[in-house]
Structure formats: C-alpha cells, structure tokens
C-alpha cells in the first residue's frame, strides 16, 4: 500500500529525515517509536503533504501512485489520514460544519451524493458516541477549547467518518487517561481491516497492548535504526533507547507530554 524509499526532508534548511525506508501493506499495523525530536511527526506531516517541509530526496508511493506529486487535499481523497499530534483549534468554524465539509468532499470525490445537514447530523451523533464525545462538541468551534484528550477523540472521530486507507496516528495516545485510551484504541481497532493500514507514532507500550502492531520501528536521528515485531516495543519499554546507542537524555521516558 505505502512504500517509502530513501526519504529525505528538511525544514528551514535543516535536514530532519535522512533516508527513511518503510513498506506498509494493506491490513498491517505499524508502530513507530523513538526519542523526542527524532523526526516522527516530520515523517507524518510529510506524508500528509505539509509544505512547510521540503522533500529533498527519495520517493513515496501509495498503491503505486507517486504520493509526493499530489496536493494535500488529493492525498486525503486518495485515503491518507493524519491524526495530528497537536490538533489545530479553529474558532469560528463549527466542528459540525468542518466534518460535514470534509465528508462531502470525500463523497464528491468518490462520485457519491453529498449528505444533507440532517443526514450528516445523524451520522455525526453516532460516531461522536463511538468516541465518547458529547454531541455538544459538534456545535463548538473545531477543537476550540477542547481538552487534550477531547482533541484526540475528535481526531479519531474524523478518521471514523472519513474511513481512510492509511491512517497515520501521531501520538494519538498521548495525554489520554485510561478510559480515554480505551475509547481511542477501540476506535482505532474499529478502523482495522484487510484493506486498510495503520501507522501509529507512540512513546508508550501501553497503547500497543490495546492495538497490537504487526511491526515496530525505532526512528532516531531521522532514520529507522531498528525494526521488529511487537516484542521490540516491550524491549524498549524495559531498556529505554540506550541499548540502541542513543543518548540517554533523549529517551522516551524523559518525553514531556
């Protein structure tokens, strides 16, 4: 489904990604772990098409199509979804209006009819229940004044509404209490299917108890320095990143989240 080859990217002249290689097949769940500042969010943002980051080398294909040639909105319509590490607050645009516009953009792209306000309201209420967000959140501005956990649930709600082919979850588990973690992981597990792939960035093994990954990768200094099965996550939890030759103060445990 997704193939990343020798991907280099920089921001403001500084190289952050220094040759990423990654293959993700439909149906798979991949976890990316790694110290703060190692480039996990940069990779996520580059895949979603954030123009603040410049791709200087390498290629990325989605089902054989050159992803890097596509505009952000086209990538989304082709099925890329990024749950932001820091979801953006947009006062003045209601969450409901935002979600409906997004869903209808996707439907139009697929040649389906747009949903009217009433139909969408019904759907949105169901999905908001699924992520345990009170429907009153639909009326508020996009993420406006939402708590950290509410923002993350709103991201998962969007994923559930948009039904992407590749969901990239950038620390969607950070800042969640136990109950919210359960809600969010149930949401992600509901997304799991044979024709969908999930790439999740996390610092914590605890998420991986709920969403069991097929592969775990360690990203450090802009490169994937180790890959393995789910047991790699357990090993990291136990030993930190030190044994991989990464400076101690950069370990995930010191991450201020």
């Amino acid at each position: 489904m997704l193939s990343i080859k020798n991907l280099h990217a920089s921001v403001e002249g500084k190289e952050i990604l220094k040759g990423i290689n990654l293959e993700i097949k439909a149906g798979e769940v991949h976890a990316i772990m790694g110290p703060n500042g190692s480039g996990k969010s940069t990779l996520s943002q580059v895949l979603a098409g954030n123009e603040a980051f410049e791709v200087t080398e390498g290629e990325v294909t989605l089902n054989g199509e050159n992803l890097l040639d596509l505009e952000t909105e086209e990538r989304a319509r082709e099925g890329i979804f990024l749950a932001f590490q820091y979801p953006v607050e947009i006062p003045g645009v209601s969450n409901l209006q935002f979600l409906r516009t997004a869903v209808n953009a996707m439907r139009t792209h697929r040649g389906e009819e747009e949903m009217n306000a009433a139909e969408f309201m019904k759907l949105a209420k169901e999905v908001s229940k699924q992520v345990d967000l009170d429907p009153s959140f639909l009326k508020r501005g996009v993420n406006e004044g939402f708590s950290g956990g509410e923002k993350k649930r709103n991201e998962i709600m969007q994923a559930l509404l948009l039904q992407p082919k590749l969901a990239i979850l950038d620390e969607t588990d950070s800042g969640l209490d136990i109950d919210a973690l359960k809600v969010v992981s149930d949401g992600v597990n509901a997304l799991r299917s044979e024709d969908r792939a999930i790439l999740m960035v996390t610092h914590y093994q605890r998420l991986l108890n709920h969403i069991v990954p097929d592969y775990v990768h360690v990203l450090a200094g802009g490169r994937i320095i180790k890959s393995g099965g789910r047991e790699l996550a357990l090993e990291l939890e136990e030993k930190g990143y030190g044994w991989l030759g990464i400076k101690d103060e950069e370990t995930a445990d010191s991450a201020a989240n």
Partner: protein
Amino acid sequence: MKPAPTLSAAFLESAGQSLPKALLDLRKQRGTALVDMPLPTRKTENWKYSSKYLKLTDEMASSLPSQGKALTGQEVPGYRIVFLNGVIQPEASKFPQADGIRIASFRDLDDQEAAELADQLDNTLDDKAVQLARLNAARFEDGLLIRLKPDAVLDQPLFVIHEVTADASGSAFPRIFIDAGRHSQATLVEEYRSSGSEPVMVNTVTEFQLADGANITNLRLTMEGENVQHIGATGVRQQRNARFESHTVGFGGPLRRHDLQVRLEGEGGECKLNGVVVTQGKQHYDNHTTIEHVAAHCNSEETYRNIAADQSHAVFNGRIHIHQDAQKSNADMNNKNLLLSNGAEIDTKPELEIYADDVKCAHGATIGQLDEISLFYLVSRGIARREANVLLTMAFINELVEQIPLETVRETAHTRLNQFFDQTFQEV
C-alpha cells in the same frame, strides 16, 4: 506652494426647490458655510489614508435625476422606503401607518413640522470631523423623517433602499432623521445600491436622537457599484438608558467613507457597534467611528472586522472619548483585520482619550493573514483549498454576521460575500 484645493463652487449651486421653506432656508445657510471649504488632503489627519481616492469632478456636482425607474420591486419583510437618487419615491414605498408614529418625506411636511425639523437637523455630527458629509445639508432635496412618540414601537423593520442610477455623472444626497421618543423602539435598515456605470457620488447623512430608554437598531449595507463614491455619516445622540445598536456590512468601492459618531449623553446609555468590511481589486473602504462617553455609567462595545484582498485598502479609525464626568464608563473596542494578499493594505488606529479616572476601557487591534496551519489541517481532510480559504475567512467574520438581527439582511450579506469569495479564491 500650491493653495489647498477647495470645494468647487459648482457643488454649492442651488438644487431643486421642492422642499418646505424652513428646510430650504436651512440648506441655504449650511451651503454658505461651505464656500471655499478646503477639501481633505493627505495632510488632513482623518483623511490621510483616503484623500487620494477622492475624485470630485464638476460633472459630479449636478444632482442626479429625481425621477426614473427604481430597480427595486424588491420585497422586504417590513416597511419599505425607496430613495431614488436622494428623493423618496412614494409609489415604490410602503409607509407604516400607526398611532404614535410619523414617517414622512421632508417634501410632505407642513410649515410647522418643517420648522420644527429644521431646528433639529444637523445636531448630531461634529462638523470638524465629518467635512464632506456636511455637503449633504447644503444639497439634500428630500429626506425621511421618522418620529416615534413615547412608547411607540415600530412593529416591523423599516427598510430604506437608497438607490442611485448612474447613467450620467452626478450626485445624490439622501438624508434620514429619526426622533425616537421615550422608550420607543424601531429597527431601521439602510441598503445602498446602484445601477449604471458613470462616476457618481452618494453623500448621505442619517441622524438619530434617542430620548430616555429609546431602543434603536440600525443596519447598514453598503453595496454600490465600482463607479460610486460613497460618503456617509451617521450621528447618534443618546439620553438616559437609551440603547443603540448598529450593524454595518460594507463592500468596497472607488471610495467608501463612513463616519459613525455616537454621543452617550445620559446615564445608563448603551451602544453596540458592529462592522464587517470587505474590499477587493483596487477598492477602498474607510470607517471612522467616534464614541463620546459624556455621561457616567454608560457602556459601549465596538467590534469591526476588515478583510482586504488583492490590492485593496481598508482603514479603521476608532476613537473613544471619555469625558471627565463619565465615571464608571465601560468601553470595549476591538478591531481585527485580515489581509488576503500581500498587495492589500489595512490601516487601523484606536484613539483613546480618557479624562475620567474610574473607567474600564479595553481596546485591541490586530492585522493578520489566514493561518497556514489551520489551512493545512482543513485540506488534510480532503477539503478543497478554495473551500478551506472560505471557511477560514468566514470564521473571521461569522460571529458578526450571525449577530445581524434580520435574516434577510444576513442572506444578502452571505450572497455578496459568496461573490467576493468566488472572485478572490480561485479554484485549484
């Protein structure tokens, strides 16, 4: 040194005589005061950003014809008064008839009413500050008088459609005077529109006198064409516990100037002034507002938003003057500005003069662009870039548009805003 330009004498030539004598006399007297009036230049403080847009030709000095076919068969949910080129068209209008409410054309006043009105007119605006709008008093050929007796309530909004037909160059000088008695209530909508394409000027003055407890809402939609210079002034004087609310929605033109001056003269008075201004192309729009807190215990709340696209230019100048005796004044002024292109310009200036010591006065002004990260967030959900731009631009003004208390006016605003978006944000 070149002498400062003055108002051409052509602009002071006597206009039509179809008014009661008292008003003709007033007009003449006001005209005399304007002989050799200097025109605003770059050096005139309150016109420094706008004088270069002012283009008064002698052709423009003539009055536009007071008869013709009004465009407007427009249905409105309320009463309707149509001004065509500054003159009321009774056939196109629907006057309210109710006890305690007198609404009439200046032309239809008897001598006594006209004399009474002549005494009251031109008492709400600061002559020194409005300059060009003073020309209205020298040139008006008709006007709308609204008198609300104490406790009178106008049961439906009154829509005043100001239309100019610019088939030849010239000017129109519509005028409205509202005398709102104690505890009276009314909503007045002013809608400015035009047809034709010759360069013309609309020079319009609206005055409100609010007695104790009167409650007046004024909606103003400025939507004339690219050939129309609009010079408008609104003067408001409020007595004890009177409340005035205004909602302006303005679209730019070659020159758009509106002076809004509110005097809170009785304790407990309250005013709320909202404005949304949108400019594009090479358009201009200049709002100058003044709120005078003369009496104690008054509240004022002002929120203006400008959006400037392309090479357009918007100006906001908000002055709050809290007089020495105006203790416990509460004044809140907020102006936010959105630049949609690098070529656009917005000048904003809050001016606070505070002479009382026990007051609450807050003000804020910002100028910014659409937020790239918000834009990325929206398009990352598959939303088209144009749509994302529209959502964020609307987000900037939505709150103010939603506060407009009449649905038809909100709809008109939305329709015009959509045209603006179509022209400003290209499909990608």
